[in-house]
């Protein structure tokens, strides 16, 4: 039982050994979410992609804050911590800096990450640790039994807003874009296939992968994402992003998005030819910024559809690598630290003999 710590060795070293199945990642704890909660599906998809990480279980860590979603680590048979409200990102930062070789996953809710944890989230984005953030967005505080959250729509009636919320909600992906995130994606609990795909993409991205997952809280906010999931409306309301493909959506795949100047507009393919359409390029930071603003209320007249998929990905140095490099650089320059020399300092004098 080798204790692996520090260094980047093992991820490769173990790659071949791995022969894990999704069920190997389940724990003996019974899952304590409400029947019908969207969290179940996410748990299942996450477990299903774990083997593909090419990591041993002992090299994977799940860290969560507090919330229904944050119960998650108890159900993953890896190392894990169910920490305090809003701080999973901060805790993961310290872990990742000191153990860069680990695969670190942050599980957080919309309240956990955007209300009390907002500051740590945006700082994590800019520092770009190589970790994965799964934001379970159910637009409500579940665990505390139904107060509105920073993603709840204006006017939302909840226990704490009996005559409607007057908070203009955050657009989580736009916020993260503003914080210079290097990977931004959206998926939802009700689309397992897409979820797995995005989770995989996130796990492969080297840097902070911000994945927003629309999750239905069937007890306190049932149907929040109905329009994106039900047969009648979903094709018209969702826009699935695919690299290099034009932005097309709709039941008949007959609508597209065109950029005139910097304004995205919905066009009908009967009037506009495909090659005039906006072609998705997840490496285009300008386009990605515009995409994050596709956040209209489906009730509005000629609104834009809601995008799902990878909005943006960029390769930027990771904080923990830079930190590691500085350690090595310092060691090269000054040589490995010698405690005796350090304690002596430069100006020593003798007393007596």
């Amino acid at each position, binding site marked *: 039982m080798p204790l692996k710590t520090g260094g980047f060795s093992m991820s490769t070293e173990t790659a071949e050994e791995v022969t894990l199945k999704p069920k190997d990642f389940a724990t003996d704890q019974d899952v304590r979410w409400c029947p019908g909660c969207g969290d179940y599906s996410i748990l299942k998809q996450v477990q299903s992609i774990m083997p593909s990480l090419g990591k041993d279980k*002992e090299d994977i860590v799940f860290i969560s804050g507090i919330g229904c979603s944050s119960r998650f680590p108890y159900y993953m048979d890896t*190392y*894990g911590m169910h920490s*305090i409200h809003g701080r999973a990102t901060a805790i993961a930062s310290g872990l990742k800096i000191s153990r860069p070789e680990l695969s670190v996953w942050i599980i957080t809710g919309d309240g956990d990450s955007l209300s009390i944890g907002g500051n740590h989230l945006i700082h994590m984005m800019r520092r770009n640790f190589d970790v994965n953030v799964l934001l379970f967005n159910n637009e409500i505080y579940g665990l505390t039994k139904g107060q509105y959250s920073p993603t709840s729509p204006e006017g939302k009636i909840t226990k704490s807003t009996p005559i409607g919320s007057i908070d203009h909600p955050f657009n989580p992906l736009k916020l993260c874009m503003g914080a210079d995130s290097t990977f931004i994606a959206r998926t939802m609990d009700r689309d397992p296939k897409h979820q797995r795909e995005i989770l995989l993409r996130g796990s492969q991205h080297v840097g902070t992968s911000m994945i927003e997952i629309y999750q239905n809280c069937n007890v306190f906010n049932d149907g929040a994402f109905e329009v994106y999931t039900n047969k009648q409306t979903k094709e018209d309301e969702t826009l699935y992003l695919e690299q290099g493909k034009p932005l097309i959506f709709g039941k008949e795949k007959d609508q597209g998005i065109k950029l005139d100047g910097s304004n995205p507009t919905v066009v009908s393919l009967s009037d506009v030819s495909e090659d005039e359409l906006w072609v998705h390029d997840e490496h285009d930071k300008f386009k990605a910024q515009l995409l994050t603003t596709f956040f209209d209320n489906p009730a509005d007249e000629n609104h834009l559809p809601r995008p799902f998929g990878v909005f943006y990905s960029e390769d930027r140095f990771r904080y923990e690598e830079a930190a590691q490099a500085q350690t090595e650089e310092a060691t090269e320059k000054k040589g490995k630290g010698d405690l005796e020399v350090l304690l002596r300092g430069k100006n*020593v004098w003798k007393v007596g003999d």
Partner: protein
Amino acid sequence: MVKEVEEKREVTIVFAGDSGDGIQLTGTQFTNTNALFGNDISTFPNYPAEIRAPQGTVAGVSGFQLKFGSVEVATPGDSCDVLVAMNAAAFKVNFPRLKKHGTVILNTDGFNARNLKLAGYEESPIEDHSLDDYRTIQIDVTKMTRTALVDSGMGKKEIDRSRNMFVLGFLYYMYNRDLRGTEEFIKQKFAGKKDLIDANIRVLKAGYHFGDTSETFTSRYNVKAAQLKAGEYRSIMGNQATALGLIAASQKSGLDLFYGSYPITPASDILHELAKHKNFGVKTFQAEDEIAAICSIIGASFGGKLGVTASSGPGIALKGEAMGLGMILELPMVVINVQRGGPSTGLPTKTEQADLLQAVYGRNGEAPMPVIAAKSPSDCFQAAYEACQIAIEHMTPVILLSDGYIANGSEPWNFPHPKDLKKIKPKMASGDATYLPYKRDENLVRDWAIPGQKGKEHRIGGLEKEDETGNVSYDPENHEKMVKIRAEKINKIADSLPAAAIDHGKEKGDVLVIGWGSTFGVIKTAVNQCCDEGISVGHVHLRHIHPMPHNLAELIKNFKHVIIPEMNSGQLSKLIREKFLVNAEGINKIQGVPFSTQEIVDAIKNRRL
């Protein structure tokens, strides 16, 4: 000309000037030189609160007090023998400190009309006879410096920057000290800038020779080397010692040091120091706030590292919730509080001991943590080392208390050899038995399994846990059991602590003085002085405030009265009264400045009657 040399046992000097005058540097150089010579020494820098308050004003005065001697020196001194004042404001602020018939060295150029006005003087103190009972040495330091560098081709502004070297040289002459140490320093500091090196050394020597040639005074002083414990010494500041203590603990425990912190006066220097030593495997992380800082060390500690964070009052307040998490997780980490004047933002640049009860009780729920305090600048090393040892060997967050006074103060340090430092043994989980995260040894300490250890995957969190398995448990009896186990685990640390002992003075008698933290030196001095006067008084210093040494009760029983001097309203007093039901009386000073020896002596005498 020949001058007589007068012997002195100890001398206290205050350097004072505008924050631009390089006072701190002058003081530090004079300190190092005397330290190297072999004096015992204690210093107390006194910065202005503002980054750079208006020049020449009282608010802008920077001071550096030091006491050096051929005898043991445990405090920077109550009042000074020599006051060096670079301008009128500096004089005004520090003159009250000067002993009757003491010596004052004035930079006359700093007493012109403008300076006097800025300092709020109607008339110059040089003319108005306030100095009649003192020995005054007036030097136009500016003029002297400029003449010394007249042909240097440097600009006035640049030239004036080296005025402090003139004063330093003058004092080296006065106490007949060697210039070489400072010359070396100048060469390092301005490495590459030959003209600056020459200029500064020239001014330094000019000051020295000025002393030699001038008629200003007829006697020099000699302060023999002190009879310190034999060994090798260096001079060290408190925060620096803390940093070295952490690195030492990291090296001796084999755990990399992860230091996550957010800047705050007076704790920031620990971060600055550690950031210089990355080649010791130290990783420093300047977090976005204090909460992120302590959370980052919780993450690092979960990852198997030695996690340490430091802050001061307001920042410590923000860490309370996360300390509770670290405590219930039972992960090793150290939280350092370099205390400053409170409440709230309070007096950021002043010292105080008013965060003790916060350290002991300032968390929600039953969340006991060991609390240990450093007693002097060099002791910060030992205290930091011990804090890490307890944290690692007992799997718990530990609070280490320091304060602005010792953090910025300095003293000679008989530094240890690494091999003489106690081993630190992490409680790493091993073997292939199924790992139960909250299974404990005879000291109730759990094993530490970290990511990367195969087969020991486990989940821990802030909810109450079932004994041994650590699974979430809402069982009433289990909760009570766990609360008691966690408390008992901390109490058991006392078993491995040295028994409390009378540090100085009588083993039994009239008055027992109990102290903690940075008041050590002044209490020691006061108690010794009282003993010399035949008063029956003893001194117990408490390094460990929670848990307390087992035998403290016995020591207390041997005295009629117990007094507890603190730079707060009586916080240790409360703990002692509650624990031992003894009528301990507080001697309290809440002025942002340390006790004077006299204040403690008086307190002891009053009690005795």
